[in-house]
């Protein structure tokens, strides 16, 4: 029998709360500046560089790192890998919060956020990739909310509604996989329109495939990383099932991530070949490209494989950090570093501290919400009334 411990009552004067208080306070002030002074008051965005840190980090990285939701639920509910079941709820929660924060970040980034519903309700740009991304993200956020809702309903004691939603699990998972496949790749497709702006080493007609495959890598690695952090900070909330399955999840997802990374490495090399871009590898951009490809794709693939072979949980967990950083680096490279690479240095974009501050503010909102939910709802343990009900 698994037993859920409630944990001791913790003081609100903790280090995390102190940092959260400062970051949230600063973020509210920056939000005030953003919505009273406009984009120019807090960003270095320009006509040359309309997409800055908020798109590259909050949106591109946010969506990729939230891929754990569809990767895990597909593994468990579509491919029948029931031994990873305890990873589903934390992954769905992370995905839900990730997409919700992407939506929040978009409100900061677009000039007139009150017009966000226009493409859906007023003037559909059905030939635009961005329209598809927007539609998919909006729909998938709704799906994730429904997928997450049974945990909240169990917490609130809404038994009938919870049982109804659980019956939709397979349908929701299929929707989630289809929508994720579409918009994860379409985020890469956005750059297909700018072959002259994106450096040839990063530009490729395969870029939608790159984005989709890296989202799988990010999803798998984020589940490992999140499981590691949950064990570190919320172990007192976990029941026996979660504690017992954690190692299997780490090894299984580490193995999958290793193989997907290897495949991604191969496709990237083919991308260089199909564009005959080998000569760029000798330039400064080429060196940076090799740092990304060898240091953040080939190396984590090998380290994951070694971790699986020698059964080292520590190695796999540290490698997940490297792999997640690799996906973030890739999105930064595509959206910032290698974008507008031919512009003179004084025209290049570098984020203002206020942009970085708002990004940290948004991440902090995610952390606070995650902690609030995990310490109250049955995310890391099964609710006593619904044991083995999955």
């Amino acid at each position: 029998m698994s037993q859920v411990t409630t944990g001791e009552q913790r003081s609100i004067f903790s280090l995390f709360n102190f940092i959260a208080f400062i970051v949230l306070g600063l973020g509210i002030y920056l939000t005030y500046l953003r919505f009273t002074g406009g984009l120019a008051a807090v960003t270095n965005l320009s006509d040359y560089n309309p997409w800055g840190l908020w798109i590259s980090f909050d949106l591109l990285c946010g969506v990729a790192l939230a891929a754990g939701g569809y990767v895990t639920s597909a593994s468990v509910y579509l491919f029948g890998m029931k031994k990873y079941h305890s990873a589903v709820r934390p992954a769905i929660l992370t995905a839900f919060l990730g997409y919700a924060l992407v939506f929040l970040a978009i409100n900061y980034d677009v000039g007139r956020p009150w017009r966000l519903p226009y493409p859906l309700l007023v003037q559909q740009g059905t030939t635009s990739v961005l329209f598809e991304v927007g539609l998919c993200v909006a729909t998938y956020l709704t799906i994730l909310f429904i997928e997450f809702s049974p945990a909240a309903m169990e917490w609130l004691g809404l038994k009938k509604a919870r049982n109804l939603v659980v019956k939709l699990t397979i349908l929701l998972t299929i929707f989630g996989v289809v929508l994720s496949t579409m918009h994860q790749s379409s985020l890469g497709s956005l750059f297909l329109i700018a072959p002259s702006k994106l450096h040839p080493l990063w530009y490729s007609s395969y870029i939608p495939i790159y984005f989709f495959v890296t989202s799988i890598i990010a999803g798998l690695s984020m589940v490992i990383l999140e499981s590691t952090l949950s064990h570190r900070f919320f172990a007192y909330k976990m029941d026996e099932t979660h504690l017992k399955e954690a190692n299997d999840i780490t090894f299984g997802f580490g193995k999958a991530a290793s193989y997907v990374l290897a495949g991604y490495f191969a496709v990237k090399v083919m991308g260089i070949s199909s564009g005959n871009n080998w000569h760029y590898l000798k330039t400064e951009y080429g060196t940076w490209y090799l740092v990304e490809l060898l240091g953040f794709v080939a190396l984590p693939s090998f380290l994951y494989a070694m971790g699986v072979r020698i059964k080292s949980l520590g190695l796999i967990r540290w490698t997940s950090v490297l792999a997640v950083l690799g996906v973030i680096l890739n999105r930064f490279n595509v959206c910032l570093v290698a974008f507008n690479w031919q512009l003179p240095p004084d025209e290049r974009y570098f984020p203002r501290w206020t942009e970085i501050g708002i990004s940290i503010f948004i991440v902090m909102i995610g952390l606070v919400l995650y902690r609030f939910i995990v310490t109250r709802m049955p995310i890391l343990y099964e609710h006593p009334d619904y044991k083995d009900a999955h």
Partner: protein
Amino acid sequence: MHQVFYTLQDFMTHTESVTYLLVIATLVGMTLFWLFLTGKDED
């Protein structure tokens, strides 16, 4: 070395040839990597 191509056909012939060789290397490499990855599985 940066090769100069005068026609699209020359370019495609060259890049596709190299890419096909890479595809074969990938198929072999991924198989070997899978054996390496699962070499110590206990089943």
